[in-house]
């Protein structure tokens, strides 16, 4: 009986994976997961770290009664502990047509970055789900937990392909309904849909989901080597425009590109959305171990 074909796995260096095991995703909010985990949560429960006292109520487990307090005050108080819960991590991967530009370098980079972040989350017993999106949410990867699910994550990411236009609003809307408050949403995108990105981030924030934006750029897009009479075609919409590209036009393009990037970064900063700007020219290992760490995304 022939074995079913093995799905492709996103390649990551074993040495890189080993270094990832020492990292953890940074969450600025307390965890609110439904499963026990390794993160502090607001829920007082059966953890180890003492949290507070509260008056005893019938039905409380008498094992948590603080007898020392009772001897001093002759009142019954029960001790409450911080319960360690898991963290829900959502990886929103932009799979629009613009991510496939220049041989799909940005999409590949985003997939590897998502794999690294997801692996870190799995190592730390967080729940990881992947939500690719384009003009609408694409089929997602249901939450995974535990190191042994890393292969599933890598296979899912490897199968992602880019197509269509970008609309982060739709996917943010869907996620806001589904995600638990306090969860993390990593948005891996090239940021050309500026308005959608800002509105989507706002929607997530309103749903108490912490968005983290990882802007993936390409130097060939920032400073294209174009010249002459060109018919420019938008890779997502297919719209065409004829333009004679000269040095002067190129200079204006570079300035517009940088202005839009700065405007986007400023708007995200204003919303207190952690943002790290990455480039496909930067090696992935350096991006994760250095840039994301400096940006407070991982620790």
């Amino acid at each position, binding site marked *: 009986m022939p074995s079913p074909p093995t799905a492709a796995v996103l390649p990551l260096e074993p040495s890189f994976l080993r270094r990832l095991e020492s990292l953890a995703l940074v969450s600025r909010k307390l965890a609110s997961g439904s499963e026990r985990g390794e993160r502090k949560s607001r829920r007082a429960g059966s953890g180890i770290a003492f949290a507070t006292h509260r008056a005893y109520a019938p039905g409380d487990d008498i094992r948590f009664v603080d007898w020392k307090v009772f001897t001093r005050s002759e009142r019954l108080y029960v001790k409450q502990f911080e319960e360690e819960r898991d963290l829900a991590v959502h990886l929103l991967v932009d799979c629009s047509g613009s991510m496939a530009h220049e041989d799909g370098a940005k999409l590949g980079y985003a997939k590897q970055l998502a794999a690294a972040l997801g692996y870190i989350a799995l190592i730390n017993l967080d729940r990881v789900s992947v939500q690719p999106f384009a003009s609408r949410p694409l089929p997602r990867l249901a939450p995974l937990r535990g190191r042994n699910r890393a292969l599933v994550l890598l296979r899912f990411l490897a199968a992602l392909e880019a197509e269509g236009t970008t609309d982060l609003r739709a996917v943010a809307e869907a996620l806001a309904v589904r995600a638990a408050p306090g969860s993390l949403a990593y948005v891996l995108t090239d940021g050309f849909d500026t308005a959608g990105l800002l509105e989507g981030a706002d929607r997530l924030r309103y749903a108490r989901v912490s968005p983290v934006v990882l802007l993936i750029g390409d130097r060939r897009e920032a400073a294209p080597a174009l010249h002459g009479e060109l018919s420019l075609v*938008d890779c997502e919409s297919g719209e065409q425009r004829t333009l*004679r590209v000269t040095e002067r036009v190129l200079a204006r393009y570079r300035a517009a590109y940088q202005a839009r990037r700065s405007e986007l970064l400023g708007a995200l900063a204003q919303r207190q959305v952690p943002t790290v700007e990455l480039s496909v020219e930067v090696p992935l290992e350096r991006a994760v171990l250095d840039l994301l760490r400096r940006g407070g995304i991982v620790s």
Partner: protein
Amino acid sequence: MRWLGLDATTLALTLLGAGAALLLLYLQKRPARRVVVPALALWSTLGDERRRPSAWLSRARRLVSLLLALGIVSALVLALGEPERVDPAQANNLVLLLDCSPSMAARDVAPSRIEQAKTRARRLVRQLGAHDQAWIVGLGDSATPLTSRTRDKATLLRAIDRLSTQEQPADLTLGVQLALDLLAPFARAELVLLSDGALLDSAGARTALARAPKIAVRQERVGTSARNVAITQLAARPYLLDHAHREVLVTVQNFGPANESLRLQVFAADVLLAQEHIALAAAASATRVLADLPASDAPLRARLELDQGTDVLRGDDAALMHVGRERTTRVLAVSADNRYLEAALLLDDTLEVDQLAPAAYRSSAGYDLVIFDGTLPREPPGTPALYLGPFPGSGSAPLPRAPGADLGRPFFDHVQREHPLVRELSLADVNVGHATRFVLLPSDNAIAATADRVPLIVEGMREGKPFVLLSFDLRDSDLPLRAAFPLFFLRTLARLRGESATESRVQTATLRAESSAPVGDLLGAPRTAVAHRSHTPWLEQLWPVLLALALLLLVLEWFTFHRGYTE
């Protein structure tokens, strides 16, 4: 303006073709290149399309671009023509005098000196300006103009192609004189001598050039090495009394600047007859006489070989001489009985002698030579003849008799000592009893005569045939008893049959590979060349200007295109 590069027709065709191709390219409407961008919105915000030029402005921009490109192409094509500012009145007249002497066959330069000279001549022809005119003159033992004065380069080049080396030494005097005669009417004239320098010691050429100081003279020198030895003379002569052997004379000369050691060999066919080693100082010559070499009919060949190294001119290292078989001469001796004559005729075994009594003589037909001894024919013989006294009163004598009786006891007082018949012979004390008086005709030559100019030995021509006359009887003199008699007699017979009895000499061409004298020495001071491009001031050449113009236009086109001023 003159064009040193491509001619006007080629330039025009090139310019036309390049311009047409350029125009065709500009007329083509190339579709814009399709480029996929990640965010067209970014490009749209640049606002370039909103400032599209109007149609006429767009056409004007394209026209400017086309004109710039045409300007660049025109400048480059014109630069190929290498234009040069020149006044037509200042056109040059050039005589290219090419040395075709045997030394130009030397192969010390590849492929040979003559080919290198022709290559340089072709280059000079191609460098001629539009108004310049030239002659091609080949210089051998005579100077031969191969073209008339022409500016047609094809004609000049064809004439150069026809040139080849000759067997005879070149005469520079003739060549220079011809060139000066050709150039004399022109104000701007130049003589260019393409030679290996072997001609420069010509005093006649120096004198001729000194008389024409306004004509510029220049030498394009070919050849590098001066190592050359040559056989300059090869001669052979038979021994008069021993026809089985002969004597060979060879002269060798070293034309190089260094001492040479060489081996001289003489062959008959492929048989080595003699061999000798010779050491020759620089510019020295040596003559060797090789005695008692076996005589044969085979051609005589002399050959030189350097002990070390090679000779740059191998052509003069060998000489060939055809000696041929000794020819048999049929002699008719019309004599009564003359032992002296009979004995003398026995000396030469190439003579086939028939003897007739005077009364039996009718004609000399069938003989190469006839001897009348003491008799005269009734009419002049149709063959060369030797007349010996005494002479009877009747018969046809070659000379008219002088009035008066015979001369008694004449002496050989006047003898032409350098005459081939009597050279190195002693006749002064010959005793003669009587001699008949003859009157010489104007064409006759008295080889020996008395003090009163009475001829004793006479030679001349009658009806196209030579004769020699002795005005006395051999038996009435002691000449047959002298040592000089056999030599004189055999020389006389050989001369009558048209041979040189003394020697047969072949002189080879005198060759020289190189002279150390610079051409300027010919005139005492160098003269200025007028027709060579290398003498043209840089500023008179326009091709660098055209090239700079093309580059400037290219930069301008690049700038305007990148700034969007042109399309």
